[in-house]
């Protein structure tokens, strides 16, 4: 027990890092759900493709063991490329797989989303093979960089992940609360038809939502790549499910909730992994999901909504 308590600060740091990544993924689910009441199963795959785009940019700009650009510029470029690429991918997915089904029974877009997810996974398997690709993070950020507080070492990579995630979330918060587009998004989420009658171009809002949500997912992919260094075609499935869990934890459709849910899930998972066994890390996350949905389906922050008939 004493040993475990000594590990606690380290697990908390791990949980914070993991949680900020989950929060980024969760935001994509939550934003789309808030506006369309649609569960975008393909979001995990978007995140995976973001990780691969980041890897591609890295491989392009760091042939051999030398960096062509300063490390900070490289990280920025990787993030930008992944966010743009994934944002575009999200828009394409919405366009082809969800838009035609907007008025269909609920099961139809879900099955369509399942198909998209499976297709993307295998498209990456076909083009990139099943081999794990490695981010050589050590080239960008020396492994020895870091600080220690209360017996926990926080590597610079972890700090970077947390800082980038927090900056992105602050940016999103500003966008949603302070801009015209954000206002339109909130209005659409509240009542799509009424928003359309007020002159809001709902289709444009939906496209923007998919773009932003997917871009955040792509950024999460790059951050995970930098943190855990290995990316592969199947990484999106579990991450997607966990991102969704985080979104549900905070109350789906609720943006601050998604952030909180991500942190909560990250903490639970790291502490569980530390105290029980790392083998059951995923198991713990899914059990949290199920218990939560059974006992508090509206999430930690969600309000009980009246079901429309």
């Amino acid at each position, binding site marked *: 027990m004493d040993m475990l308590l000594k590990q606690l600060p380290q697990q908390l740091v791990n949980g914070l890092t993991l949680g900020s990544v989950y929060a980024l993924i969760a935001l994509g689910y939550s934003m789309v759900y808030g506006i369309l*009441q*649609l*569960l975008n199963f393909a979001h995990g795959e978007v995140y995976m493709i973001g990780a691969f785009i980041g890897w591609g940019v890295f491989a392009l700009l760091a042939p051999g063991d030398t960096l062509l650009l300063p490390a900070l510029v490289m990280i920025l470029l990787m993030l930008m490329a992944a966010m743009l690429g994934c944002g575009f991918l999200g828009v*394409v997915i919405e*366009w*082809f*797989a969800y838009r*035609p*089904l907007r*008025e*269909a*029974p*609920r*099961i*139809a*877009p*879900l*099955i*369509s989303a*399942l*198909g*998209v*997810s*499976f*297709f*993307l*996974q*295998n*498209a990456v*398997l*076909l*083009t990139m093979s099943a081999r794990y690709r490695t981010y050589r993070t050590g080239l960008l950020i020396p492994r020895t960089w870091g600080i220690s507080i209360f017996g926990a070492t926080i590597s610079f990579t972890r700090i970077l992940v947390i800082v980038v995630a927090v900056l992105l979330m602050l940016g999103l918060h500003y966008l949603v609360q302070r801009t015209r587009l954000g206002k339109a998004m909130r209005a659409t989420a509240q009542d799509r038809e009424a928003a359309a009658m007020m002159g809001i171009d709902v289709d444009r809002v939906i496209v923007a939502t998919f773009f932003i949500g997917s871009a955040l997912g792509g950024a999460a992919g790059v951050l995970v790549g930098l943190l855990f260094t290995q990316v592969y075609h199947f990484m999106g*499935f*579990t991450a997607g*499910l966990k991102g*969704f*869990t985080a979104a*549900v934890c905070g109350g789906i459709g609720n943006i601050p909730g998604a952030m909180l849910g991500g942190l909560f899930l990250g903490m639970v998972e790291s502490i569980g992994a530390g105290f029980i066994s790392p*083998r*059951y890390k*995923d*198991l713990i996350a*899914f*059990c949290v*999901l*199920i218990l939560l*949905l*059974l006992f508090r*389906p509206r999430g930690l922050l969600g309000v009980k909504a009246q*079901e429309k*008939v």
Partner: protein
Amino acid sequence: MSNGPDWEQFGKDEWAAQEEARLGEAEAAGRLSFRLRRAWKGVDSRLKMLAALAVASMVPLLVHNSYLLRVAGLTGLYIMLSLGLNVVAGFAGLLDLGYVAFYGLGAYTYALLASPQFHQHWPFWLILPLVILVTALFGRLLGSPSLRLRGDYLAIVTLGFGQIASLLFLNLDRVSLPFLHLDRPLNITGGPNGIINVDDIRILGHTVETVSGYYYLILIFVALVFLVVFHLDRSRIGRAWRAIREDELAAQSMGVDVRRLKLLAFSAGAAIAGTAGVLFAAWQGAVFPSNFDVSILIILYSMVVLGGVGSIWGAVSGALILSVLPELLRSPEVARLIFYGALILAVLGLWRRARMRGLALLGSVGVLGIALKVTLTALRPAWFLQPELKVSVARSTFAPLMKALNWWMLFPRESRGVGNAAFVLALFLLLGVLRLKGTARYVLLVPGLYTLAFVWETRLVEEPSVTRMLIFGALLVLTMNYRPQGLFGERWVQKL
């Protein structure tokens, strides 16, 4: 059928139920698919079942290749599984993404009780009812949250349950219990190595060992499951399920016991999957966690969706088509034949009202191919393989066709990178085709089809297993978008 009410239409939304009649007056004469459907509906169901059973039972007499017979047996298992999934997702409209877990649960239960793992060798007739009971119970457990959750939350909870099951299959090989002191960790499922040396099935003193033996056993079970599902569909229960699917609130206010019926759907589906799992475990003689992963779930959904959600014959034919087709793709030659055949038929079918335009399209694709081949091989001969190297013409049954292909298609020496790039390009071109209208669509189709064929030759033919998965994924999206009712199903109600 002509006298009295049509029981199959009961519990169905009126608009959906009258689809036939509306179509019938407007278009009956013109559409081949409609006439085929009418003819199919006109045949007595018992006759269709007997015919299907007769054909299926002749398979081992006609096929002596044990590999093909294995495929036939697996097809039977898939039919069983999609019939079960059809009960949950089709009849009752519950998106159960944990379905494969029951398949795994059945298989693992059999493997644990009939293998050297724990030195248990229970007889089949004892395990089967037990498995049915256990899986039905777990189905009920999984279903109970569905009473509180709406469609997409239900989907995710069941997916979570499914993941937990497969994580348990994978991780229960070194279990240490906190209160029981064991001298070494308990190995229950064998982890990634699975459980091997599972007993064959013994019934009435006979041990089923041969491939054809298992084929007949599976066939018997498929027939039984089919009968059960068929009668369920036509019973009071089936009508109530349809009513719940179409409008839960309306069904409830008409006195349907929604709670009981949803749970029943879950446990019926689970029990069928569990039975299929038992047969699978005994037949394969081993179980591994990878036999029950997400891809099986996607394959099953593709089958049910292709056949038509909620249609029994649809589930059967979907499973039949999608388990036989990938086997045909294994041989590059047959795969090519199917691919180009399907492409040409699709173009001709889509332009059936303007056949000349369709033919012109195919002609342009052909000309584009020849032009590219001539110019590029003249400019950069070193980039490409000599024609005869890639497609072996000599021993081919379809020699002229393969020869033509050799002269039409480019075969780059470095096929991987180019093929991957072409794959992405083809996706963009075809997505563009789907979005555009009129002439632009027509013009974009020419490079689109050529690139698709190029990708097919450079990448897809060489990796049949990935190709198969890509086809399943694309099929789900395309069916949902363009024909949500599948091959046999009725059109869905559009809620406005």
